[in-house]
């Protein structure tokens, strides 16, 4: 009843939201969820999402996909979006409707 899949999580600067979603779908991702306001800290300092421009905001994208798709995303993201402020990781999940992912 339960089928193994991978969950891709991407935290990326808000201006790249659309290109990243477009690229994910070109990689075979069939669905995604997005959190529009994510505060963050890391190499680029604190990014607090309250600026008057969206240039310093983060969003988080979550997408459940097959292992092959997820590996391809993990392996190629930083090549495709070389200068992006972004963090990517994948993990195991189980779903019940295998055909949806």
């Amino acid at each position, binding site marked *: 009843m339960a089928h193994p899949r991978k969950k891709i999580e991407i935290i990326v600067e808000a*201006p*790249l939201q659309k290109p990243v979603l477009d690229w994910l779908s070109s990689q075979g991702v069939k669905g995604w969820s997005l959190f529009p306001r994510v505060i963050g800290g890391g190499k680029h300092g604190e990014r607090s999402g309250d*600026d*008057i*421009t969206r240039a*310093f905001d983060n969003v988080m994208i979550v997408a459940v996909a097959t292992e092959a798709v997820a590996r391809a995303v993990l392996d190629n993201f930083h090549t495709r979006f*070389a*200068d992006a402020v972004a963090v990517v990781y994948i993990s195991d999940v189980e779903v019940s409707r295998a055909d949806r992912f």
Partner: protein
Amino acid sequence: MTELLHLAAGNLLSPMILAFVLGAVAAALRSDLEIPEGAAKALAIYLMFAIGFKGGVAMHAASGLALAGAILAALALSLALPLIAFALLRGVWQQNRTNAAAIAAHYGSISIVTFVTAAEFLRSRDIPYEGYLVAMTAVMETPAILIGLLLAGQQKNPGMQARASERGALFREVLVNGSVMLLMGGFAIGWITGDAGLAKIRPFVADLFNGALCIFLLDMGLVAVRQGRAARSFPRALILFGLVMPPIGAACGFLAAAALGLSTGGAMLLAVLAASASYIAVPAAMRLALPSANPSLSVTLALAITFPFNVAIGLPLYLTLAQRLFGN
């Protein structure tokens, strides 16, 4: 000179500018004071719609021909200003091509908040200006983004493969970006409905304007100082660019104003537009289009240096100059 000092003092002592100072002080003291994000955006929408509408109402009398000329002049400024900025940044400030192009795009565009503050500065001194200045504001919002891209030249970064098609999309997007729609839409509505329309919504678009501007400038004060602090590795030398470029832009604005035969108020506002730099629409567009540029350089310049310079010193300075050049 005393005249200028007098103007400057009067400007600094208005509730609007003091609200900016309050925001700056609160941020400097690391207060947690914060305007909720949605509220700041709602205020910006209000200010743009209201200034657009009032500009349109003022057009009621003017001719379409004057508008056409103004739009051409605005386009010319949008082309000239980033070129000048780029040349200075490359030649004098030794910036790399990408960063120079990105900064140039910010200075070729305009700051609507600076514009509405200047418009209010004139209104409180009963100095009239041409309604189509608002249309020029809308026109000058976005072309500089494209000039900036051209100046940056071909990116060799492999991550940029898909860039060509994205550039097309970017072009469409900047033309219909929210600020442009609000300014031009408000302008059109004001133009169509005229004084009858104004009578219906005057308490909203006119009476409340200054108060709303206070709160928005308070937020700008907070944001400007926080941006300045966040930019730790900002090269000191660049600060000078943020102070030198506005007067150069203002000079270009006066030239265009002379060509258009603008009034003193109109000339001053056009100088303000040319002197100001964008920190809302352009930074996000540049992250998309030129991700290898360092956004912290351009935003810090536009927001933490040029913006305060323009509202505190620029407004009285440009008005004094306009009065000298275009008559009282």
